């Protein structure tokens, strides 16, 4: 009598949350669960009802931080191992991989090319546009497609030449008095018209006030994905645009992609990407477009432009050397020691949010998430603890020097050189030493 191999029931395991991993992303798992087996607790973490759970693993797939797993007890694991051994011993059955043909993916293949929006104020370009041409060129090269610019305005043809100099191969030019001032309605209609006609796969826009206003309107109209404030852009093996951005107030980074719709849209803040080399000998093709946007159709009117009084003409985002002060400066007067050092080094004084909130420094000088993003050659952080909101605004600086009394301060984690000490002693000492060296050099020259 031959013994039938005993049929072992495959253990199903238990779906469970891995402690400490959930980031309360916004109930993706709850939304994805086909059996409504997941409810969220007050902290925004899933509670899985095992009576209802069918172990379909959809929640596991959708979780961005791999916080849910199927857990097997040691006994169950033993059975699984046994089953695996049996299977290996038996003739391996070829598993036919049925990949559903996704019509959505077919449709997006029509979209080709990388576009960069040229932002300008009545013809004066915003430098972020040229920075985006730099990263746009890399993306276009990887994808093997054209790098194009979109220029919308009134008498703005001169911007095309500059776009070529910074790397664009083609500029779609929409030049008409109706576009004299930026207005959401006229600009987004023109932009959407061009996208629908030429179908680009990637659209990059500066994350300025104007750029965010425009990008949000375009993406919603086109029903496509838009990722704000990207700090990294790359192409993955399948040709998708990987958009990396700070999330949760900059505490973590998220890589986001737009899978099924086109174009893939991103905004990038000024000074996050490096300005590419300008080559005025480069030329390209200008494609003139007349778009069906007429003045009488645009209801919003710009009545008046009020230029801000130049209270503070210093642009901290443009400086090569920044001497930055935070809460540790204690008052406005103390900033004079930073100014002295900045003067000796040929730099500019900036500050953290704490200094603005205390009323010691003007908002224009603030570096960080709610202030400016900077990437100077040297950033000297004085009495700045380094809250994540500050770090995201300056961590791309070439060299970071941190001076702080608290050796636990997070600023030391991004610093190239750190000095634990009293800034009121250390900074004047640095200034004096710089002066000494300069005097020596002057003496040697004489």
């Amino acid at each position, binding site marked *: 009598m031959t013994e039938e191999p005993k049929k072992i029931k495959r253990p199903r395991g238990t779906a469970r949350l891995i402690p400490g991993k959930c980031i309360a992303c916004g109930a993706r798992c709850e939304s994805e669960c086909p059996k409504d087996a997941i409810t969220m607790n007050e902290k925004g973490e899933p509670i899985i009802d095992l009576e209802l759970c069918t172990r379909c693993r959809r929640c596991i797939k959708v979780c*961005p931080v791999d916080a849910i797993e199927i857990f097997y007890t040691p006994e169950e694991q033993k059975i699984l191992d046994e089953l695996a051994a049996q299977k290996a011993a038996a003739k391996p059955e070829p598993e036919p991989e049925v990949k559903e043909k996704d019509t959505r993916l077919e449709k997006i293949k029509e979209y080709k090319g990388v576009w960069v929006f040229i932002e300008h104020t009545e013809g004066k370009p915003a430098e972020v546009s040229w920075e985006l041409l730099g990263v746009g060129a890399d993306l276009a090269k990887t994808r093997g497609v054209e790098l194009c610019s979109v220029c919308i305005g009134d008498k703005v043809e001169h911007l095309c030449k500059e776009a070529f100099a910074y790397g664009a191969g083609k500029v779609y030019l929409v030049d008409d008095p109706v576009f004299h001032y930026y207005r959401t309605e006229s600009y987004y209609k023109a932009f959407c018209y061009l996208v629908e006609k030429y179908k680009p796969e990637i659209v990059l826009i500066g994350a300025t006030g104007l750029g965010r206003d425009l990008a949000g309107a375009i993406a919603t109209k086109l029903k496509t994905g*838009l990722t704000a404030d990207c700090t990294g852009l790359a192409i993955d093996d399948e040709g998708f645009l990987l958009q990396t951005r700070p999330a949760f*107030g900059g505490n*973590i980074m998220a890589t986001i992609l737009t899978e099924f719709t086109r174009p893939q849209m991103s905004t990038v803040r000024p000074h996050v990407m490096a300005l590419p080399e300008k080559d005025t000998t480069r030329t390209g093709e200008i494609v003139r477009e007349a778009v069906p946007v007429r003045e009488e159709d645009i209801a919003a*009117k*710009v009545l008046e432009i009020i230029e801000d009084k130049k209270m503070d003409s210093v642009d901290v985002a443009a400086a090569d050397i920044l001497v930055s002060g935070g809460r540790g400066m204690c008052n406005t007067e103390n900033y004079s020691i930073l100014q002295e050092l900045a003067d000796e080094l040929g730099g500019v004084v900036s500050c953290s949010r704490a200094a603005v909130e205390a009323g010691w420094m003007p908002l224009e000088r603030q570096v960080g998430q709610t202030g400016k993003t900077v990437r100077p050659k040297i950033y000297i952080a004085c009495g700045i603890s380094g809250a994540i909101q500050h770090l995201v605004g300056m961590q791309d600086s*070439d060299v970071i020097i941190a001076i702080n009394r608290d050796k636990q301060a997070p600023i030391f984690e991004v610093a190239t050189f750190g000095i634990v*000490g009293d800034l009121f002693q250390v900074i004047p000492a640095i200034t004096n030493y710089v002066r000494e060296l300069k005097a020596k050099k002057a003496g040697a020259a004489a």
Partner: protein
Amino acid sequence: MLVVACVKQVPDTTQVKVDPVTGTLIREGVPFIMNPYDTHALEESLRLKDKYGFRVAVISMGPPTAEVTLRKTQALGADEAILLSDRAFGGADTLATSMVLAEAVRKLAEKEELAIIMCGRQTIDGDTAQVGPGIASRLGCSQLTLVDRIEEVDVKNKQVKVRRKLEGRHEIVVAPLPAMIAVLREINNPRYPTVPMRLMAEDADIALWDNKEMNIDEQTIGLKGSATQVRKIFSPERTKGQILGDETDKPEDVARSLIDKMKEKDLLSL
């Protein structure tokens, strides 16, 4: 006429810390608050109520626990508060979020003439500033972002005049109603609730609209209606630098070693 203020309950991201060992977020003890930008949107809505007699309805998409935030808006003087909550709304990106909010506005506007949709500039957890424009675009109404002053609402001619803050300048724009206005924090100082109002708000009705009530195509909301997908989440890489000196060192010596190091690396030409 009606003003709809959009608010979001968010974790206070300034209090979130990252575990230095595991790199995961420490959310324990982090309070949920009304998005700070939205407190200014609500305040501006209430000022329009005071000035023009508009009715203020507040909407918020979120989990059932977001009711706490909506109750606060009632204590401040909002006339109506509606929580948009359904598991089908979960996992939404900005595109899918704007769908639910726009549909809620549309539903409110069926019963009452809509003047303004008021939003904060952005949220502190998402930081996108995309939902306001998304709502405007979906409803086809005027889109006015970066507003730091509402000059006038002209009820008779159905238009609004605002001041927008741009780089290095301001502009005065006039646009037809209804308009979506996204306000900057400079626009006002939010009021505090009075004790009687707070007590009143404790018993106030917070309406709950789920998708049975709203009946939106499930393909356009929540995770399914989101055009963006999160591929991965990770902690930012940090390369620890070199500590040149501590408090026991003489400041002059530390200064010297710093500047000499910088010169060595050709970072300073001194």
